[in-house]
């Protein structure tokens, strides 16, 4: 890295000095040894990866030590998702190690997923030797070029003396501010070259110092608005989870202090206990009726670490038209991006919530009780619509029932839930209640099918002894099914709970609602026998075919201390409701199948995704 060359050399000369870390006794290390040492000094205990020609020196260095564990995945995309699961369930940086060329390109989907969902990842990629770069060498790809738009930042290290510093900086960038994936591309000759090591203590980034402490005046103005609110709503997102468990606690404290209703985005689930009466359920396209109506009719909205995503807002022109909006975000570019807000507060959610609470208490502020009780009366009225109800059956397993039972029978174990993408994901978000942060791992921004199984592997690595369940669909699970082999190798007792309706359910639902029921290519003709598939991988396979099978199968699944695949054969025609059709507003929700005929989706809505 050119920008660090000067400093890197200076540091190399000074490396014999104690630097707050253990000195390496003046011994020069190879680039590969520096990599492992830097990981250890960053507190990394687990790396998810796949070897190849351009990273062999690092794998060799890995072989000779015991401080960093390596988990051998079966596909590089799985490595990144596993690292995401690890990171999201622990709050630590997830680490990936892959080879050049196809190793790096296979990681791209995972990196994009981590960027969209703000997950801290450091991804080390091998690269052909520096003299071959640009030569179309074997397994060469322009990794920094390819990953530039799908990472928070990336580096190509051409000088071994810049290696340690750049790696420490990569960790700093990945976890600071709005977290994200960082790629470090390591040419093979640099891995072999000898250089000096530098500890993490001295590494401070030249320019990148995100603001965490909010503007004090903005905080006061926010409290002014909250105090005068008559129909307030607190709208929390994944930023609360990213800020750490303390932010979730402060969010709950703010809800308690004000008595305001709150809702959470898909990414925010777990930031506030789902069992609390003041939680209105998830907001957005498949959120609850009461949450979306409360957003729409509110007069003051406090958005905390949420980004007004199109899945949340619906039609922008009709999004909460009467409210004054306050937006807390660590990323200034999130503020005023989709929705113009009245007050933007840049800072770490946890810190800002703390300052707001301090001000609220100092003022001995109290909400407008009369207006608030009126507002709650209205909300209870919406709640009575019971928007998540479905027609139960004793002959066929309803997917909602399958997830409700899973929740009821496992909630005492506080399971970690991952999902794939589609109908099952939305049902899981609707019917699984989360009481704590970091227990819900789903691909929200990118919507990556095949996310859940590798993510579950990562979660289980980070949380041994805990119950980890991937709520999956039969189409999604086939996208990264090979990771069952990883789960077996490392004896990770992850549970795959497959909601099997033989359709790409969400595609089928949209084809039904928007394309005249022409089910183009959304039916899977030749599915594997999931029970036999499980056995072939060395897992336990179970199947539920009628409602009375569901409970015993779940109990068996939880009891077995091995990876388990459960094939839950559900109603093939069930759709996911409530739903805001694309291009519609929060108050134009469809509650169920009977609703759809009355309100055809507008042409404008058709073109939206």
């Amino acid at each position, binding site marked *: 890295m050119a920008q660090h060359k000067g400093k890197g050399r200076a540091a190399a000369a000074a490396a014999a000095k104690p630097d707050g870390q253990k000195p390496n006794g003046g011994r020069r290390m190879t680039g590969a040894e520096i990599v492992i040492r830097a990981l250890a000094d960053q507190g990394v205990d687990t790396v998810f990866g796949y070897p190849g020609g351009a990273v062999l020196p690092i794998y060799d260095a890995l072989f000779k030590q015991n401080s960093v564990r390596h988990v051998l995945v079966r596909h590089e995309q799985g490595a990144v998702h596993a690292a995401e699961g690890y990171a999201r369930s622990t709050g630590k940086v997830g680490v990936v190690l892959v080879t050049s060329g196809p190793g790096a390109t296979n990681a791209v989907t995972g990196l994009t997923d981590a960027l969209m969902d703000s997950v801290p990842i450091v991804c080390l990629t091998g690269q052909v030797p520096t003299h071959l770069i640009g030569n179309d060498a074997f397994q060469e790809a322009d990794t920094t070029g390819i990953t530039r*738009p799908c990472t928070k930042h990336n580096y*190509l290290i051409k000088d071994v003396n810049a290696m340690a510093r750049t790696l420490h900086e990569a960790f700093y960038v990945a976890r600071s501010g709005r977290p994200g994936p960082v790629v470090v591309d390591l040419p093979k000759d640099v891995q072999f070259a000898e250089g000096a090591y530098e500890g993490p203590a001295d590494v401070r980034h030249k320019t990148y110092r995100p603001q965490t402490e909010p503007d004090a005046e903005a905080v006061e103005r926010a409290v002014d608005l909250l105090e005068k609110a008559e129909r307030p709503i607190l709208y929390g997102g994944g930023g609360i989870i990213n800020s750490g468990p303390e932010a979730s606690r402060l969010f709950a404290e703010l809800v308690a202090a004000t008595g305001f209703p709150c809702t959470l985005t898909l990414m925010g689930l777990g930031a506030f206990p789902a069992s609390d009466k003041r939680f209105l359920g998830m907001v957005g396209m498949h959120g609850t009726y009461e949450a979306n109506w409360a957003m729409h009719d509110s007069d003051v909205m406090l958005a905390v670490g949420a980004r007004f995503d199109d899945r949340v807002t619906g039609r922008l022109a009709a999004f909460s*038209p009467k409210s004054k909006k306050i937006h807390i975000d660590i990323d200034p570019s999130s503020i005023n991006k989709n929705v113009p807000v009245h007050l933007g507060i840049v800072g770490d959610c946890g810190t800002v919530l703390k300052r707001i609470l301090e001000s609220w208490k100092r003022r001995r502020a109290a909400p407008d009780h009369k207006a608030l009780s009126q507002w709650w009366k209205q909300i209870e009225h919406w709640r009575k619509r019971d928007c998540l109800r479905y027609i139960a059956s004793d002959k066929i397993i309803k997917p909602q029932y399958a997830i409700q039972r899973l929740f009821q029978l496992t909630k005492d174990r506080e399971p970690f839930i991952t999902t794939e993408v589609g109908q099952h994901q939305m049902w899981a978000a609707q019917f699984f209640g989360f009481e704590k942060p970091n227990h819900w791992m789903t691909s929200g921004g990118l919507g990556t099918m095949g996310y859940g199984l590798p993510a579950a592997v990562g979660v289980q690595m980070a949380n041994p002894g805990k119950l980890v369940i991937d709520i999956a669909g039969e189409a999604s699970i086939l996208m990264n099914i090979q990771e069952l082999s990883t789960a077996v190798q490392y004896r990770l007792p992850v549970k795959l709970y497959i909601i099997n309706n033989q359709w790409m359910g969400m595609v089928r639902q949209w084809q039904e609602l928007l394309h005249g029921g022409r089910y183009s290519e959304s039916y899977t003709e030749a599915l594997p026998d999931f029970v036999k598939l499980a056995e072939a991988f060395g897992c336990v396979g179970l199947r539920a075919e009628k409602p009375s099978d569901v409970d015993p199968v779940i109990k068996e699944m939880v009891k077995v201390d091995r990876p388990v695949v459960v094939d839950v054969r559900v109603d093939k025609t069930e759709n996911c409701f409530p739903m805001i059709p694309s291009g519609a507003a929060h108050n134009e929700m469809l509650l169920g199948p009977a609703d759809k005929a009355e309100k055809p989706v507008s042409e404008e809505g058709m073109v939206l995704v």
Partner: protein
Amino acid sequence: MSSRKKPAAAGSVYAPGPAEQKVAAHTIAVLVDNTPGILARVVGLFSGRGYNIESLTVAEVDAKANISRITVVTSGTPMIIEQIKNQLARLVPVHTVHDLTLEGPHVERELMLVKVVGTGEHRVESLRIADIFRARVVDSTTESFVFEVTGSSEKLSAFVKLMEPLGLAEVSRTGVVAISRGPTAIMKRGEAD
């Protein structure tokens, strides 16, 4: 994603504001670490998010602190311009982003080299116009001139237009560079922070 916002349509989908937001050109100065790939990052940001680049120049301006200055002229509604600035500031190697258009009076200049080929009356006329524009002749043969012109982009465009009937053969322009008026600097020289 078909729902990707386009600057022109963006005004209509937002909640009713004070008035229809107008598209305006802004000149933005960005100080960056002079690292490999920084220009690709900036340009990729503009193309990836569908913003316009009307002009972009880049060169190292502080060798000691290893800083380059990018001057970009872009256009958009106030909300889009705010996004562009925030997105630029979010890039890790970016030090500061200054909207010279909003921050007060500033000077904008562009340099152009123009090759005009011709003989006789056309040749004489081109030299006469060049004089009016305070263009310098930097190369000359019996049948051609290369003129160097500096000034605002409008002036340069006007000069090109006048040269068209007189044997205009080739144009090379630098794009706009800009700096604020008055004693304040946007960054101390030689300091990386």
